């Protein structure tokens, strides 16, 4: 276990120094989701907000509602970019040395995601918290619920990062993953439009994004004062996704190692 944590930490430190080597990267990773957030917010102005069907959204808390969406998404989206960056280790040859070592592969993927996910979103997180706190009269928080949901959120964001790292590292066609993961997530995971009002077919698509569940839970406990028991279904879904992501990653790692020893190539799909 100590060895595992050592590798996680070393990989996180390396990724921090290798990728987040100058300050401008934090800013550019912040500006981009910020712009999307603002676009969505101002496009709401074209509508009569009180006319919505969703009971807990009103003219006062819609800013926080939207901010939570974009803040949460920045955790899940920034990792796409850094996972792509990580996949370059395959071309630069450093991946071969990692495979030559005795380090636990999951620990390496996890360390990388730890740095990527949280560092990419840190500025957005601070900004989001400022928005939430400056509007605290419009929110309705369930404290216990928030702490549990936040814990789930962190684990899911990290595992989503680990899973994407595995996908990008072992896949040839990464452009495809970009197309799949970037914009659809903004629409279908309910970042700017709550999934509750989706037509049925769109709801089904939204089910494949882990962000959908954890974002819904986050909004419920922060805006609607929902108790854990009232959102237990969503919580169960989150736990199930955690299990699925972790096992999918572990299986991928084992299969890749086998495949690589057979063909000398880490590219799996």
């Amino acid at each position, binding site marked *: 276990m100590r060895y595992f944590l050592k590798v996680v930490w070393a990989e996180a430190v390396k990724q921090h120094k290798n990728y987040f080597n100058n300050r401008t990267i934090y800013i550019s990773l912040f500006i*981009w989701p910020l712009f999307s957030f603002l*676009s969505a917010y101002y496009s709401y102005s074209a*509508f009569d907000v009180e006319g919505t069907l969703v009971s807990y959204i009103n003219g006062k808390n819609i800013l926080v509602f939207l901010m939570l969406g974009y803040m949460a998404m920045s955790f899940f989206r920034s990792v796409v970019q850094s996972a792509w960056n990580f996949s370059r280790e395959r071309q630069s040859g450093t991946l071969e040395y990692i495979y030559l070592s005795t380090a636990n592969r999951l620990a390496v993927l996890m360390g990388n995601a730890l740095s990527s996910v949280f560092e990419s979103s840190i500025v957005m997180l601070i900004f989001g918290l400022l928005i939430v706190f400056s509007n605290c009269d419009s929110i309705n928080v369930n404290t216990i619920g928030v702490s549990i949901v936040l814990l789930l959120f962190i684990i899911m964001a990290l595992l989503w990062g680990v899973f994407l790292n595995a996908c990008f590292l072992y896949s040839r066609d990464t452009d495809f993953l970009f197309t799949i993961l970037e914009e659809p997530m*903004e629409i279908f995971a309910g970042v700017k439009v709550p999934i509750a009002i989706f037509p049925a077919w769109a709801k089904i698509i939204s089910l494949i994004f882990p962000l959908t569940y954890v974002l819904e839970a986050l909004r419920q406990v922060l805006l609607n004062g929902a108790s854990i028991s009232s959102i237990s279904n969503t919580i169960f879904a989150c736990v199930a996704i955690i299990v699925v992501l972790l096992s999918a990653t572990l299986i991928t790692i084992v299969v890749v190692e086998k495949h690589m020893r057979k063909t000398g190539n880490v590219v799996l799909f």
Partner: protein
Amino acid sequence: MELKVLKATIKKEFQVRLRVYPISFMVGCILTSFYTTFGAWLMYHYFFRRQLSDSFSGLTGTSDYMSYAIVGSLMYLFVVRTCLNVSRTLMTELWEGTLESLMLAPFRRVAYFLGNMLLQTITTFGETAIATLIGVFFGLRIHEFNIIEFGIAVVLSLYCFFGVSLMLGCVMLYTRNTYITQNTLFTGMFLVCGITFPIEYLPTGLRLLGKLIPVTDCVSLMRAALLGGMGQGQFTQTALMALISGTIYIAFGMPLMKQAERLALEKMEG
């Protein structure tokens, strides 16, 4: 001489594209347009149940939100595709190591970029046509088609987008990064250029920024040509504004590009 460069560039780009047409790129751009339209559709029909705010029709001259948003997203697709292609050509040349030999040849940059742009325009029209079909499905309706206004809007848009691409190309060459730069600038344009909502909703600073980018005017012109709601005097005024800002972009873009090229090559050595 310049005509020769123009022809050679078109021929070269055409050959490259014939061999490896970036299909995933094209699909990605059409999808972006689709998602924007779909997002607007969800908002209008489901989230806010077709209840527009009182100010919307006053500001836009139309009460058809879907057509308003779809025309915006189509123009956005058009600007993204043009900019991506023209600004990235030099980046690609830098990556492939052909920039240096290109700079050695004593030709005028204008012809080189125009060649790229012309070819791109043809493909972009095709892609926009596909996206328009999707738009019709989501509720795009032409209310008042004015062919003269439409012609003016298309020509001015091409002119202005060319200027914008030059500027974007400079930033890319300077930062030597395409992914973050292009996406930040495109999401920025999406925000301030009135793509899915009138820029009057923005705070003053952002609204002014939007006014400085000719894309904003071009989008307004195109909407006027297709959806109406803009008087002739206002149309002429907006068209003039677009022409002026487009000219400024091109006038500053060309020398800046030269500067950026030199810097890029120096950095490559170092």
